[in-house]
Structure formats: C-alpha cells, structure tokens
C-alpha cells in the first residue's frame, strides 16, 4: 500500500498544475498505484492568510473516502495562527502541520518557529518542513526563495525532542547533522525520499543503511511532480519486503495516527 506523504491539491501561484482537484488527484493516484496521500493546499504556499487555503482544502475534501488525508499549513508569523492551528486540527481533522519558513517570511531559528512546533506537538501533530516548494532556479521574477538549510531543521529538532519532524523535498543529508551517527543526530526526524538519488551518489541506499527504513517515507510531490521517478526508485532500491512496507506506507500511517 503506497502512502504518499508529500502531495497537494489546488492552484499554485507560479505555474499550472494538473490533476489538482479531488477527482483529478484521485484518478492520478489510482493510475500510479498510490492508495493514500497526505495533502496540503498548494495555495497556502503563497497566500498571506494561508489558513484560508486550509479551509478551502477542508471544503474540497468534504464527503471524500478518507484516502486523501488533509495537512494544515500554518504561518506562525501571521495573526491568529494559534486559533487557525486549533481549528485545522480539531475542527477540520488535519493530521499534520506543514511549515514554509522562507515563503512565509521567517526562519526556523526565529522564536515563532519554536512556538508553532510546541503548539503542534501539544496537539499530537507531526511537523512537516519542505526544504523547497520549487527548484530555486525555476522561480520567476517575483520570488527568490532559498532552500531551508538542513542544519536549521536539525537545530529545531534538537530544541524540541518531543516533537516529530518530517523533511520533505530534501537532498544532501549525508554529511548533514540529520544523518550523523546514532546518538549524534536528532532522533525525531523522518526523511521523505523524492529527491534522494538512488544511483551514482547513492544517497537513498546510504540513508537506508544509516538511518534504517523506519526513518524514510515515500513521497512524490504530486501533482507538482511526476510520481514515476520515486516509483522507479522504490522498484530498483532492492529493499527487503518489510523495509519497503515501512517506507511506502507503515511509517506514514503511524506518524499520522492512521495505523
């Protein structure tokens, strides 16, 4: 059972997305053999009041079969975010919180990042941090948004040992604090695999060995990205059946309280 931890619905400000309504994404998932997906609103990346996008996502998912699981996007630098978070979690049933620090005008070293992590953890929600929403080279003239440094994520995770973090769209973990030897790295981080090379630099197999399958999560970035490269990686990785089950679904279900 494939559970995609990194999926989206809705419109993105900078380019056309396809398969981005509920019917389209569901059909796309079925074609690609993906059973469930944790989905946030693509609008929330650029809307100032990103909770409006959470509300829109919740409305879109009303009456659906539960295979598309909602994820809130919260901007802790914006007025009223605590109420938004509580509404997203308790009122809309959102199972995780996603942060876009550089799109939303703060850094993970700022106090507001600590506050939102504490609040999410109090609600039992994991915190997802996309290293990037889009390749920086592709951004248009309106934006220049740098990637979130892995060291910032590691430092945040170190300050909040009770919180659970998922790093999305990341690369270059080997040599970072997130893939340091056991005991030296934060023990509360999971890594989504969509950008990890399987071949040549072999970052994916190296992380599988260093961190273990329990810390890796299948994710595609659909419908921003083709899911097929990640599907190909899983097909060629050579992981055991139990490792594959963990990466492709069990870990996500457990993190989101859906096991």
């Amino acid at each position: 059972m494939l559970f995609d931890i990194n999926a989206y619905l809705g419109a993105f400000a900078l380019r056309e997305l396809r398969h981005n309504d509920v019917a389209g994404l569901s059909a796309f998932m079925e074609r690609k053999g993906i059973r469930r997906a944790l989905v946030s609103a693509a609008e929330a990346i650029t809307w100032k009041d990103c909770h409006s996008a959470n509300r829109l996502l919740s409305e879109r998912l009303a009456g659906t079969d539960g295979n598309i699981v909602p994820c809130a996007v919260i901007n802790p630098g914006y007025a009223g975010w605590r109420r938004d978070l509580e509404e997203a979690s308790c009122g809309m049933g959102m199972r995780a919180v996603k942060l876009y620090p550089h799109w939303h005008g703060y850094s993970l070293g700022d106090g507001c990042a600590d506050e939102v992590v504490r609040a999410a953890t109090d609600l039992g929600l994991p915190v997802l941090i996309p290293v990037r929403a889009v390749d920086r080279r592709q951004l248009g003239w309106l934006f220049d948004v740098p990637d979130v440094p892995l060291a910032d994520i590691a430092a945040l995770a170190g300050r909040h040992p009770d919180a659970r973090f998922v790093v999305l769209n990341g690369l270059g973990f080997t040599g970072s604090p997130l893939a340091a030897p056991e005991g030296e790295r934060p023990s509360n981080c999971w890594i989504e695999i969509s950008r990890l090379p399987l071949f040549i630099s072999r970052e994916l197999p190296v992380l599988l060995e260093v961190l273990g399958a329990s810390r890796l999560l299948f994710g595609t970035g659909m419908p921003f990205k083709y899911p097929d490269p990640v599907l190909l990686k899983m097909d060629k990785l050579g992981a055991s059946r139990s490792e594959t089950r963990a990466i492709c679904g069990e870990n996500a279900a457990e993190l989101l309280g859906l096991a």
Partner: protein
Amino acid sequence: MRIDAHAHIEPPGRSELNGDPWGRDRLLIDAADALEIDWLCCSCLAPRRPSSPEDFIACNTHLQHAIEAFPGRILGYAYVNPGYQREAVAEIERCVREFGFIGAKLYNEYKFTDPAVRPVIEKCIELDVLILHHAGHTWWPLPGQPNISDAGDFAQVVAEYPELKLICGHIAGGGDWEWTIKALREEPRLLADTSGSVVDEGMIEKAVALMGADRLLFACDMSMTAGVGKILGADITEEQRDAIFSGNIRRLLGGRI
C-alpha cells in the same frame, strides 16, 4: 531502446574508486544497466573552467579510454573551450575523425551568440556532427555562470546556420523550463534534451505539445531516475515515447546505432 543524450564521465584522475580504475564511471554504467539505458552520450568536462587546450584535450582522450573500457555503451562528445579557436577546431576534428565522436559539447565559457564560437559551429557543420550545449534561463543570476546561453541565444544562431544540429541541454535542469520550451518552439530546427533533476509534472507533455516529440531527446545528465521516470510518466503516446527515448537521436546519428 534507450539512449541517454546527455551524460558525463569523470575527468582524468577522478575515475578510480576502491581500486577500480573506472570505478566512478562504472556507477554510471551500473545505473544505465538498471534503467535499461543502452547507450550513454558522454562528455568529459575539465574540472577547472574556463579550460585550457591541454585540459580539454586530456579530457577527450580520457573519454576515448572510457569508451574503450566500456565497449558498446558510450558515445563521445568532444568538450572544448571555443575561445581557443584553433585548438578547439583541431580537437573536434581529431575526436570525430580518429575516435568517432558524435559531436561537440560546449559549456558556459562563451555565450553561443559570441562570434568567438563561430569556427566551432562551422567545423561541426562541416563534419556533420551534433553540438550539445549547456543551457539555462533563470530570472536571477546563476552564480559563476555569467555567460550561460539560453534557448533564445540558440534560436538566434540557428537562424544564421540552418544546417547546424544543435541540442539545447537539460530543459529540466536549466531554470525556467516553460520559458525554454516556448523559446524553443520559435525555432523548429532546434533540438532539446530532457535531462535535469527537475521532474515537474506536465513538463514533457508541454514540450511535446509546443515543440513536437521529434525534437526531444531523452537524457539524464546524471539524474538517473529523474531522467527515465519523467519520460515513463508522461502522458504521451508510445510512439512519441519511443521517439524521445531513442528514435530521434538515432535519426540524427544517421543509422550509426
């Protein structure tokens, strides 16, 4: 059949891994094996750029050794710095005539519109071989790449040299791919390779719709699953997929493969 139109081998002195003199390049061959890529069209870039003639000659000789080390898997592009006009032209001639290379690889030493590049262009036309050009179009400066060329530059030159067989490198690794595809649409003689780490959904479909499948060449530029996966995942016909995977470059190579 799958032919990767844009790949690289390691430069001289960097191929060895764990006692295997071609160990690092073997990682590329292993990836190609796993992903059913039959041929890799490779260049060997000098690590120090802009490169000197000594460096690019050494790189191309090293590439020829790699071709011999992995028989039946690698086709060569001669990497040159076109600023050294006499040496660059002579090197392309050597690589094509002596080694059977399929073309030249140009990086970012000069913008393609710079008159300094013309002798290289004219030599490639004379030899009837390809030019694969590093490319990108971004809305913010790329550090260290002040002379990077984009599809608009290529269109300008091809209008002047209609016989030129020019491949715009890595539409998926050179910034704003939508801009690039639209610029490529305007010059129907231009080709493009699909390599790069970017796997934005809809990219291949848009390229096929605006440019036509017969102008697109499958490639990875070392982003292996990204390269293969985006072609496998694209919502195009099997005929178009086959053309992109190998048919188009086979046509360009005149039946050599």
